[in-house]
């Protein structure tokens, strides 16, 4: 019952059709940036500061009742939302004016207003000092990850490869942010972790294809560059698709069964695997054509390695 996902020798025109991909990706990136600038991200309390309380009520569908009770407290724009089950409610309260102490007071006020009989499943309170730091730490992490990967690829390959990889990588990161802006899912610490993992995953795919490009550059000394690049992408395509599929299988299980808290994280990863696979094959490889990868250097390097 062996199945084949792809023809034995696929000959997709990744390089020939590169302009289609470039334009498509440019539009995606532009749309993402546009969304980010206009709609922005729905930042979680990790980054904005504030309060998040998850409660389980004794009876289902108490959300209206609770909203009425909490509305009287004048704590700003309180959001209530069903969280996975009708008796599970997530309450979001914006950061209070007056810093740490005011936040504490708000939590106590909520607990008093809601009364007894409620199970407090989770209470999170992030003060303004910490939320600022968490935000910047997240930024530093993403930026330094991209730089570190650039350096690593440069070191292992040539700078042209590094640049190609980083363009593809940035594309993945930016569009992921775009998707989060589009659907307005919460963007929190876990999402930053997902973005970083996407970066690692996407580069993993890219490296595998680049490896083959390098090998083929040594093997076929006269083949035109575009043909060579396309061949490399096709040769590694079955692996690329296979790995993406197994990872997606695991992530889909996580998305549906891993619980409410982890769902956004799983969602970001699923998107990341899809876009990362696409960008490795359809962006990173064709981009090499425009980066001016030099066959000569590769040969010299090969000669050095095998005296």
């Amino acid at each position, binding site marked *: 019952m062996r199945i084949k996902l792809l023809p034995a020798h696929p000959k997709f025109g990744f390089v020939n059709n590169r302009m289609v991909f470039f334009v498509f990706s440019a539009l995606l990136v532009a749309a993402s940036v546009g969304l980010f600038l206009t709609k922005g991200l729905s930042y979680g309390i990790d980054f904005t500061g504030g309060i998040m309380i998850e409660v389980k009520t004794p009876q289902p569908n108490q959300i209206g009742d609770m909203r009425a009770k909490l509305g009287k407290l004048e704590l700003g724009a309180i959001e209530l939302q069903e969280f996975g089950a009708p008796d599970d409610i997530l309450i979001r309260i914006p950061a209070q004016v007056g810093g740490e102490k005011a936040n504490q007071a708000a939590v106590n006020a909520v607990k008093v207003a809601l009364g007894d009989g409620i199970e407090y499943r989770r209470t999170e309170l*992030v003060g303004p000092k910490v939320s600022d730091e968490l935000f910047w730490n997240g930024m530093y992490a993403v930026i330094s990850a991209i730089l570190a990967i650039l350096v690593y690829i440069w070191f292992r390959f040539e700078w042209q490869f590094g640049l190609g990889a980083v363009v593809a990588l940035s594309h993945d990161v930016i569009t992921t942010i775009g998707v989060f802006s589009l659907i307005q899912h919460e963007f929190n610490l876990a999402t930053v972790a997902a973005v970083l993992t996407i970066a690692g995953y996407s580069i993993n795919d890219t490296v595998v294809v680049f490896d083959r490009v390098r090998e083929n550059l040594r093997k076929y000394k006269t083949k035109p560059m575009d043909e060579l690049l396309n061949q490399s992408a096709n040769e590694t395509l079955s692996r690329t698709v296979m790995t993406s599929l*197994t990872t997606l299988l695991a992530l889909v299980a996580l998305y549906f069964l891993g619980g409410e*808290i982890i769902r956004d994280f799983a969602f970001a990863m699923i998107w990341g695997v899809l876009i990362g696979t696409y960008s490795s094959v359809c962006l990173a490889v064709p981009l090499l054509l425009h980066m001016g990868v030099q066959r000569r250097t590769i040969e010299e390097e090969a000669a050095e390695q095998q005296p």
Partner: protein
Amino acid sequence: MLKIETWKLAVVGILCALGFAFAAPNLLDSDTAAGLPDFLPKSQINLGLDLRGGSHLLLEVEVGVVVKERLESLVDSMRTELRKERIRYGGLGATASGVNVTIKDVAEAEKAYDIIRKLDTGYATELGDNGHITMNLTEQSLKERRVAAVEQSIEIVRRRVDPQGIKEPTITRQGDDRILLQVPGEDDPEQLKKLLGQTAKLTFHLLDEKGSLSDAMAGRVPPGSMLLPSVDEFGALGKPRMYLLKKRVAVSGDTLVSASLGFDQGNRPAVNFRLDGVGGKKFADITRQNLGKPFAIVLDGKVISAPTIQGIIPGGSGQITSGTFTTESAKELSLLLSAGALPAPLTVLEERSVGPGLGADSIAAGKTASVIGLVLVVIFMVIYYGRFGVFADVALLMNMVLIVALLSVFGATLTLPGIAGIVLTIGMAVDANVLIFERIREELTTGRGVMSAVDTGYKRAFGTIMDANITTLIAAALLFAFGSGPVQGFAVTLAFGIISSMFTAIWVTRIQVAMWLRRTRPATLKI
């Protein structure tokens, strides 16, 4: 390819066996595992607060208060010294990080400078023109103060939160002036904050009976005295009664060695305390010299009570009474007093607590997701690669065992994102095998023999596997460096998963493939 050196077989075998041995305790419940004999591995995976329930508080030590107190005490001792030497001065006062004073008679400035300089060596003292003297805290001593304040706070926090030493709280220093407190099983952070909400600094002061209280209330507090409110006595308009006290600490609560719940003559709750030898002697001296005078007990800047000294109190034992004590609050105060005073107030910067119900649900959901994810990938690999898929699946299961073993051995904390990391690893772990198998397929199509194709496949795929995994490891390392708590848990499981998958995907499958090839010696190969 067919021949794998015996020592390599042995190493792979031993590593796998160790994996099983160290993963095994996780199958037992925690009490059984703890009861295992010492020669057996018995450490289990450490569950994060988000999975087992508990509270996480990030506290900031307000070190500025410590510095301010130190500056004020310097001002006091400067005043005392200069008066003793009858040196006239003006403009004595504390700045942000130092103390200024101007000596009126420039001729005496040199002498004053010598006296002042010796008061505290943690300052850089400068003598300027016109008898102007500045003392500034040096960077070094400022830093020492800060470090000491945080270290001391950690110790006091531990004693307050866990007086019996049974709750296993994790209390660590974060950055310059922060403390991370994690208490498993405590899902009501209010309880914790109540314990940490006050510094509980206890001091005893004599009252300033010469100064006029009404003058002081009008803003003219005599130098060397201070105006403090009462905790429980209220005057007209509900304003607390004020006391005019001498600034000088007669006896400090630092010398307190124990405190416990007691009862006064009227059988009302009170706090009994005992001071150490030095404090006890001071207490006896003060009571002897000030018989019949009121003596104020001050806690965190508020007067608890100011009883009249009825007789000499020897031995350093005493009782604090207050009209508002309940059994509960007296007990709490005695706990705070015996734990010691915090050097500075603590501010809660971040608070996260998870109830046991949510934690249990998260574990259950995580388990389901992992098992289903694993089953899906296992089935898919068999469908796609047939016999080789089975080899890869064996390696994948071994990889799971190794991750569990690594997490147990290193005492790493498994968090909810950590479980996500494991599920992700399930998907990515087979990547190395996919790389190898695809390569073997390719080599077969170029017309190589079975043995040669398999051999080349493993060899050529190796470099690619390394490159691909190192980039993911870089991302994991950065996540660990910049992330906090749960995210770090994710980074750890991801990194462990990648490392162990390189081992299992390459070696565990290789041995299986070699054994199978040796047994059947196939002329053609279908992957």
